[in-house]
């Protein structure tokens, strides 16, 4: 089954919910309401089945075995690579590298491309709304190479100031690494514009797609990014799998990341020659089971239809925003014009942690704190927010539950 041949049904949230067994469970005696999807999404039965079926039916190490199990496992593993290639519109499957997740993808680029190309005095541009995972690897690199980290500022709505960004670009700018969708605010950044400006000044661009890939249509060729990274577990897939897409001409000349099995062509004690792409960057036995199950997650998304998902989540975002802005003392942090289904908010005189505990008491899972974006929280002058993030299986009724839970919590706390 290929993605293009799947028939997209009309959207039925009850049918979707039936596919996620965890949604039936109770928390603290209440029906679970799961609004922590930006941290990780729940998994449909098809993903769970794919994982179990691999271990039950054809568990084997891949690529070098000549027995049937190894062939079946290899085929299933490589099938996911093809699905990912289609999913993000990559020109070739060789440009799809499996990692442990977004963070490892960014570190891979920092340790290989970064160490080869960043010299003293060079500049790396990131933004105020980056996740710590897209800050720290570049700080480490800048410290090591005596390079300079520059930060794109944002406005009070949580949108990047593109004029300021363009002023940051100089002939010394070697890399721009920017998040496509903010995990803390939900802002959708105009990455095409960011990339084209960077390319004009000769910089390479990495796009952090951790939050965007599950919500937006991704076409890395149209975007023209040089690197694109994301994690499977935020796309209804398993934890421990991520993807690094890189343009072939870059991946081919970059030094290797980790040495070991799979990434080699020939080893003697004098000299090792490295395997071709993508295996050059996949040292050691990969996370076979989870990569295979990730394929099932991609099929789930394409069968549900990304347009359907987007429309449903936009409806939830609008519904939640309309209700929340009416609550006294509540202020939404992140009010960009272009947003995905994330509502981050603070309430006067109430600590997010207290809200989180009391919502959990009613079976409602939200995230509280700084969301691994401390510089962004500092920009807004707050220690953290309470964040509700929506997925395909959430409903308006659940948002009503959230609002009722907040009203009750505010009453208890004030």
């Amino acid at each position: 089954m290929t993605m293009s041949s799947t028939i997209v049904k009309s959207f039925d949230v009850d049918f979707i919910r039936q596919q996620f067994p965890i949604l039936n469970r109770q928390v603290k005696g209440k029906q679970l309401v799961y609004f922590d999807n930006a941290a990780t999404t729940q998994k449909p039965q098809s993903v769970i089945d794919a994982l179990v079926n691999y271990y039950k039916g054809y568990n084997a190490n891949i690529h070098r075995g000549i027995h049937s199990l190894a062939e079946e496992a290899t085929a299933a593993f490589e099938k996911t690579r093809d699905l990912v290639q289609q999913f993000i519109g990559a020109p070739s499957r060789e440009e799809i590298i499996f990692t442990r997740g977004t963070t490892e993808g960014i570190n891979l680029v920092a340790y290989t491309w970064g160490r080869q190309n960043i010299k003293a005095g060079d500049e790396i541009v990131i933004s105020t709304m980056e996740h710590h995972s897209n800050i720290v690897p570049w700080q480490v690199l800048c410290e090591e190479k005596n390079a300079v980290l520059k930060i794109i500022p944002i406005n009070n709505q949580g949108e990047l100031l593109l004029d300021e960004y363009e002023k940051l670009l100089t002939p010394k700018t070697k890399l721009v690494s920017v998040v496509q969708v903010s995990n803390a605010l939900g802002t959708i950044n105009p990455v095409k514009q960011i990339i084209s400006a960077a390319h004009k000044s000769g910089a390479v661009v990495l796009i952090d797609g951790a939050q965007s890939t599950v919500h937006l249509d991704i076409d890395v060729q149209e975007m023209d990014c040089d690197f694109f990274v994301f994690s499977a577990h935020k796309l209804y897939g398993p934890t421990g799998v991520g993807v690094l897409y890189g343009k072939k001409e870059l991946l081919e000349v970059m030094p290797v990341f980790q040495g070991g099995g799979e990434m080699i062509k020939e080893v003697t004690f004098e000299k090792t020659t490295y395997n071709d792409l993508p295996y050059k960057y996949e040292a050691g036995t990969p996370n076979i089971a989870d990569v295979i199950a990730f394929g099932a997650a991609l099929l789930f998304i394409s069968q549900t239809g990304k347009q359907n998902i987007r429309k449903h989540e936009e409806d939830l975002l609008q519904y939640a925003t309309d209700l929340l802005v009416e609550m006294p003392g509540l202020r939404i942090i992140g009010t960009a014009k272009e947003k995905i289904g994330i509502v981050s908010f603070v309430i006067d005189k109430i600590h997010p942690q207290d809200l989180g505990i009391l919502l959990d008491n009613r079976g409602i899972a939200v995230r509280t704190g700084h969301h691994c974006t401390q510089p962004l929280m500092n920009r807004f002058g707050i220690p953290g927010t309470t964040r509700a993030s929506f997925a395909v299986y959430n409903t308006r009724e659940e948002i009503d539950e959230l609002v009722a839970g907040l009203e009750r919590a505010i009453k208890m706390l004030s």
Partner: protein
Amino acid sequence: MNDSKTIPEIEQEIIEEFSLFDTWDEKYEYIIDLGKKLPPLEEEHKIDENKVRGCQSTVWLVADYVDGKVFFKAESDAVIVKGLISMLIRVLSGQTPKQIIEAKLNFIQEIGMTTHLAQTRSNGLLSMVKQMKNFALAYKIKDSSISHDHGYRNTEAKNN
């Protein structure tokens, strides 16, 4: 404070108080109430040096050592945490370093707070307990060094 009661006795009191509550909401209403009633910490103590690490909320904790007993004062920017602090102070403040170090604090589990607060949050609670025990340990070491050195060593406690 608590002159006549031992740590296990106060723990038992708290466990009995909580046994009156039927729902989690009632337990939390009580903890929130305790939090609201916790006396505020003087501003001069709200400095980085007095912060307890590992909490999602900010917690400041200071200790004083008077006549062989440790007295704690603390505050947080989150109300539920303040309620938990209030209970810890009730149990541990005014006890000897030895009693504090040896305290099992089973009441936290008995009233359902370790299992109920997720790991990430109870880390904050555990950090607080650890910090209180560290204070007690520091005072105990100072006491024993005084007896060995015939009282010549500086006994000023850092966080007084």
